[in-house]
């Protein structure tokens, strides 16, 4: 699988109100990019625009893949809420994409993925029987099941407690390696742990921030990562 980069040359508005400043942003292919910025600056809107689900938002400009092929059908999305259907079992949730496209679900693959994210024993349970971390791992398995080269993450770990968050971050980083990941987050520490590239979105546009040295996911007590966390937080507070 070759994961293309993204090139965003666009601004966006709802009616006459600008919801995303004019951007010329390149998202590196097969790498993890974290998008930071204040609330209301348009981070989630940008993800929704890339995924083509931003109803009511007018896109002025273009969002393209660097390999010039259309993006449609090459994107998977993971959100803050696990978005598991409460009436389906975990396996059925993981294979939801196939049901929604009217194709036969690849059950052996779903089983293998659940095994990999450590949910093999929970495959036939309903989401309500799982903890928050387990539910988000099920959401990860569902995202992996889609097997798309571009993955958009909208604060997928923000509802988890610190320990579970670190675990699910590690798991996600491991499984999404080699894909083009664009993650929106409020948490500088999360960006410093996971990112190959860090971009700060502001009302005027965007600016890049150097990611810490070393490969992601970095250790939670990695000095370079902690230093970047502090510097990023200071930068975000100044903005």
């Amino acid at each position, binding site marked *: 699988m070759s994961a293309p980069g993204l090139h965003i040359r666009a601004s966006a508005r709802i009616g006459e109100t600008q919801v995303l400043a004019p951007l010329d942003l390149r998202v590196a292919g097969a790498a993890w990019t974290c998008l930071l910025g204040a609330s209301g600056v348009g981070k989630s809107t940008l993800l*929704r625009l890339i*995924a*083509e*689900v931003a109803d009511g938002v007018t896109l002025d400009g273009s969002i393209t893949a660097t390999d010039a092929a259309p993006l449609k*059908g090459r*994107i*998977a*999305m993971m*959100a803050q*809420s*696990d*978005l*598991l*259907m*409460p*009436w389906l079992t975990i396996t059925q949730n993981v294979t*939801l*994409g196939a*049901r*929604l*496209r*009217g194709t036969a679900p690849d059950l052996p693959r779903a089983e293998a993925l659940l095994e990999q994210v450590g949910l093999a024993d929970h495959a036939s349970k*309903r*989401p*309500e*029987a*799982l903890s928050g971390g387990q539910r988000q791992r099920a959401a990860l398995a569902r995202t992996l099941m*889609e097997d798309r080269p571009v993955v958009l993450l909208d604060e997928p770990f923000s509802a988890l407690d610190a320990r579970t968050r670190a675990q699910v971050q590690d798991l996600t980083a491991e499984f999404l390696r080699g894909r083009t990941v664009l993650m929106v987050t409020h948490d500088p520490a999360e960006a410093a742990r996971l990112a190959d590239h860090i971009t700060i979105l502001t009302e005027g546009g965007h600016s890049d921030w150097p990611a810490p040295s070393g490969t992601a996911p970095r250790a939670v007590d990695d000095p370079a990562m902690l230093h970047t966390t502090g510097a990023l937080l200071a930068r975000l507070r100044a903005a």
Partner: protein
Amino acid sequence: MKTALTALASTALALALWQAVIWITGVPNFILPSPLRVLETMIESRALLATHFMTTASEILIGLALGALLGGLTAIGLAASPIARQLVRPMLVFSQAVPVFALAPILTLWFGYGMGSKIVMALLIIYFPITSAFFDALMRTPQGWIDMARVMGASNARIMRVIRIPAALPGLASGLRLGAVYAPIGAIIGEWVGASKGLGYLMLLANGRAKTDLMFAALIVLAVFTVLLHAAVDRACRATLDRTREGPGGV
């Protein structure tokens, strides 16, 4: 077991109050018969009550089934199509301003004195609550689910079938529970306006001949049936439709 005991105690209390009113006021039998008298009548006239009950129960059950089917389809149609929403919804709301009671004579004219007009009456009275409850639930599908489904490449029809309808089934269940209580009202009104069978007809007949005990017997049969119907619908909904409800620890 405890609820059964409570229900029993509550029934006993109601009967005691009823009897007490009769003793205290000394009201004659043809105005308010005693509980015992009503029970005697029920047993004596069981064949008569059973015949009329079968008619009314059929009207109610058929009306409920048709109302659920039509209401369900209407709700899905409205939820699926913005144009249908704009065109049909005002009509639905306006139709609610017309008292269904006022339509009973014309329905009898259109659908005859038989069961047809009563079934339509029961259907009409439950159609709006069912449509409305299910439609509201269909429009409340979490946006995140719909967005995810679209990213996964789903058509609107599949999103409706795989996500929106299952997610809205508890809403349909709420509508059906209301329907189970309203449908008997529709059937009885229909029978009052013009019928030759049914508990409503029997009540009117008994009342006219000052057979108050028979009227009460019919009334109790109807009330017990309504309570049981509601309980049955509630149970069925819990076992099926409500399973899509978000459990504890949900989003």
